[in-house]
């Protein structure tokens, strides 16, 4: 029988692991535009670009949780979902790319020849893109993104939900701080 303290430690370690994986966010915005003028939004149709990874296609849990997280954050900023008269149309993409980074854990090496390759490690990086389009002009007025290494989110829904919440919260702070 496993003691509760062991389970607590496992949960704590897992949570810390997920929480500590680096997540970076960024955004581009239309210069000089007053973003507080928007009060309603709806979900727009996605463009023709590929998702980038079959594991994320038709993933209903991801879609529901992501759209719910965005709607919640926008509601906190005074933007309501409106199917009839949206001022903003929102669409999003999620892609997974293979990336390289320097292995910070590798010991320093003396490289006497041209064959001394740098200590690199490969990993999968997920990028969430959130596009806000002015419904009147059909122009992109804001793009936010969040990037992080993929851990076990694709298999663990709790971790995926945590990661989505974290990414959406931090992205939308850049759209309009609370």
């Amino acid at each position: 029988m496993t003691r509760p303290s062991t389970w607590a430690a496992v949960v704590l370690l897992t949570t810390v692991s997920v929480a500590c994986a680096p997540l970076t966010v960024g955004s581009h915005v239309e210069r000089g535009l007053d973003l507080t003028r928007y009060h309603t939004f709806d979900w727009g149709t996605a463009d023709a670009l590929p998702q980038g990874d079959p594991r994320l296609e038709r993933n209903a849990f991801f879609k529901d949780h992501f759209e719910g997280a965005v709607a919640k954050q926008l509601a906190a900023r005074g933007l309501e979902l409106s199917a009839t008269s949206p001022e903003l149309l929102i669409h999003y993409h999620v892609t997974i790319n293979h990336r390289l980074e320097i292995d910070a854990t590798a010991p320093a090496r003396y490289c006497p020849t041209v064959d001394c390759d740098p200590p690199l490690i490969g990993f999968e990086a997920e990028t969430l893109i959130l596009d806000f389009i002015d419904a009147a002009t059909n122009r992109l007025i804001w793009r936010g993104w969040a990037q992080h290494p993929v851990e076990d989110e694709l298999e663990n829904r709790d971790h995926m939900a945590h990661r989505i919440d974290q990414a959406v919260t931090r992205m939308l702070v850049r759209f309009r701080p609370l």
Partner: protein
Amino acid sequence: MFAVTRRAQFALSLLLAVASAAGCAPIYVHAYAERGTAFTYRTYAWAPDTAVATGDPRLDNNRFFAEQVRASVDRELTARGVEKIPSTSSELLIDFHVTIAQEVATTPSNRNEHCVNCGTTIYDAGTLVIDMVDARSSRLVWRGWVEKLDPVIDNQDWMEETIDRAVTRIMRKLPYPIQHSEF
């Protein structure tokens, strides 16, 4: 002595990393012109937008990036007396493409030199290509491009400055001056 060398290498690596992050890394510019082409074009238009994956999802269909490229090219062509007009009657059609891929940079760049960990850095290296197509013949008459460009996507101000600098450098490769004569 060895410690001093290591400190110097570390300082150099740090300097290169900071310079790269600030968009000050060296950029490599090239151009190709179709032989026999008389660069007497005096009007141009932009080719229609096409959704193309760039290798970095942050730049796919990114209007802010695209409009900065177009604004910089417009400024350079205007300075050379080439006028932007509707595409139906322009002499040149202009398009651009960008692709992003990770590059591994090693300091010192000559890897025959001895070093510790060789000051390795990884950065997003972009290739920005500007194409000019003769609107009558649909033939590519000029292509200019910049390689190993870190577009500094995370910082919109730096990204715009980097694009502007890169386009300026590319357009210096245009056959110059463009003459103002009838087609």
